[in-house]
């Protein structure tokens, strides 16, 4: 065997975790509120603004329709503007976030749609303000669904981040392609797959456990 597997995998895993963790944070921060807006600005909803809803819907669909590998390259000038460089792990966080924000927004919108309209009505009848309704009714009731959305998004980010090698972002996918494919070291390929598998399993398990703990439906 020509490559010292362990330090290589350790470094790549750390890079993947950095990319997924950081972009996950940004995605949650922007994508979840965007999901609420997508839901709440619909006609008949709490913050009915149909024109804004149409604009947001179009933007989100546009974001969702671009393949991530294209987004990665197309966003290079923007990434350079934001991070100062278009190469490296940090630089990948920008396209990862922009690619996944519309994704989680749609998932969160779906989670909010599950909340029976009767609950919103009950809150309105109690004299709750729109903000109180969101904070005390909609958010806690939709929390299991929102956590599920985060879990799905993190798993998607793991898979997106595997393409980060294309812009020198490193990570497990990059190692798998460079060592496993270009240098014919199948054991490296297998090892990265095993680590990725374990990572995805871990994320899903943690997410599911969290949902179980807070879901009282």
């Amino acid at each position: 065997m020509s490559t010292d597997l362990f330090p290589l995998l350790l470094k790549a895993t750390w890079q993947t975790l950095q990319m997924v963790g950081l972009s996950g944070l940004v995605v949650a921060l922007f994508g979840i509120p965007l999901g609420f807006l997508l839901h709440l600005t619909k006609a008949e909803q709490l913050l009915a603004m149909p024109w804004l809803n149409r604009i947001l819907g179009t933007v989100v669909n546009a974001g969702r329709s671009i393949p991530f590998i294209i987004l990665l390259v197309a966003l290079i000038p923007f990434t350079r503007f934001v991070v100062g460089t278009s190469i490296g792990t940090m630089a990948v966080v920008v396209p990862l976030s922009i690619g996944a924000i519309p994704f989680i927004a749609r998932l969160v919108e779906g989670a909010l749609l599950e909340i029976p309209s009767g609950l919103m009505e009950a809150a309105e009848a109690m004299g709750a303000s729109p903000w109180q309704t969101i904070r005390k009714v909609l958010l806690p009731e939709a929390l299991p669904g929102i956590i599920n959305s985060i879990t799905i998004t993190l798993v998607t980010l793991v898979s997106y981040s595997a393409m980060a090698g294309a812009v020198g972002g490193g990570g497990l996918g990059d190692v798998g392609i460079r060592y496993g494919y270009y240098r014919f070291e199948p054991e490296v390929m297998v090892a990265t797959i095993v680590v990725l598998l374990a990572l995805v399993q871990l994320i899903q398990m943690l997410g599911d456990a969290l949902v179980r703990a807070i879901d009282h439906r």
Partner: protein
Amino acid sequence: MIELKQVSKTYTHAGRTVAALRPLDLQVERGEIFGIIGSSGAGKSTLIRCVNLLERPDGGQVLVDGLDLTTLPAKQLRAARQDVAMIFQHFNLLNSRTVFGNVALPLELAGADKQQIANKVASLLELVGLADKANSYPAMLSGGQKQRVAIARALAVDPKVLLCDEATSALDPETTSAILDLLKRINQQLGLTILLITHEMDVVKRICDKVAIIDDGALVEQGPVGEFFANAKTELAKRFIASTMHLEVPASYQRRLHSNAKASSHPLVKLSFRGDAVDAPVISQVARKFNIDLSIVSAQMDYLGGNKFGLMLVELSGEQAAIQDSLAYFEQHNITAEVVAYVD
């Protein structure tokens, strides 16, 4: 306490305009239980949702304790809604909160402090008989228990009015009785004004002081429950009343009935009792006074809105003139007597 003046509402659906409420007036006095009954699609749901402006009427005024809700800006309307609590057919409890948390919600919204909330919730759960379920989640409760939680939640900020939107329609008959008893008890203990809508006459019969019938967006008949049952004028009202009266004629007896009188036949008379007439022993008086025999085929007696009310089918046999006299005697005593058939 609640006054609707010329309230109207139309919906436009797929280009067609449907009148859900034609301009209607409604007055509910302080401390009474007012029932609105109607078939599905008659507009009763729209009507009750207009009272707290969950539906905003197209025209008219909605006054609660003298305050016209339709003129209030958003913030004042929210404050006013705390006086107008509501319970629903499907309870609408938060699954993410315990029983305690659900009842606490309106208090939190109103800005009560922790100690106030704890005291109030404890006393409300005591009132609805769920003190031991404070830490349960709604998913663990039965339908009746859920509605009790919803009632406790509705009472949390001491409303002046309670709106019940088909509150017992999702419950089995036994649970329905228990919930209606609870509503009656709350009405009496707290003097709370209750407006309820239902499609079941039994609900009205059981707890309402007054009733109105809604049909095609208009209130077609209304009045105190006892009077209403006794003197219903509209066909719809009579149908609803009939739905609660079960005067069954046995099949074997049915075969002996004819619509025309023959020399040998006896009249079958339907007696409708109302008011205080029921307490008088009219049946035995008739038997003695006119020397006729009365055979009861079927009967149902009920206690409605403070009055006894009932229906009875009796077969009369005796002299032709005596039977006529006895029918007149029933009428004198506020008992409507109607010959419905003749028996061989």
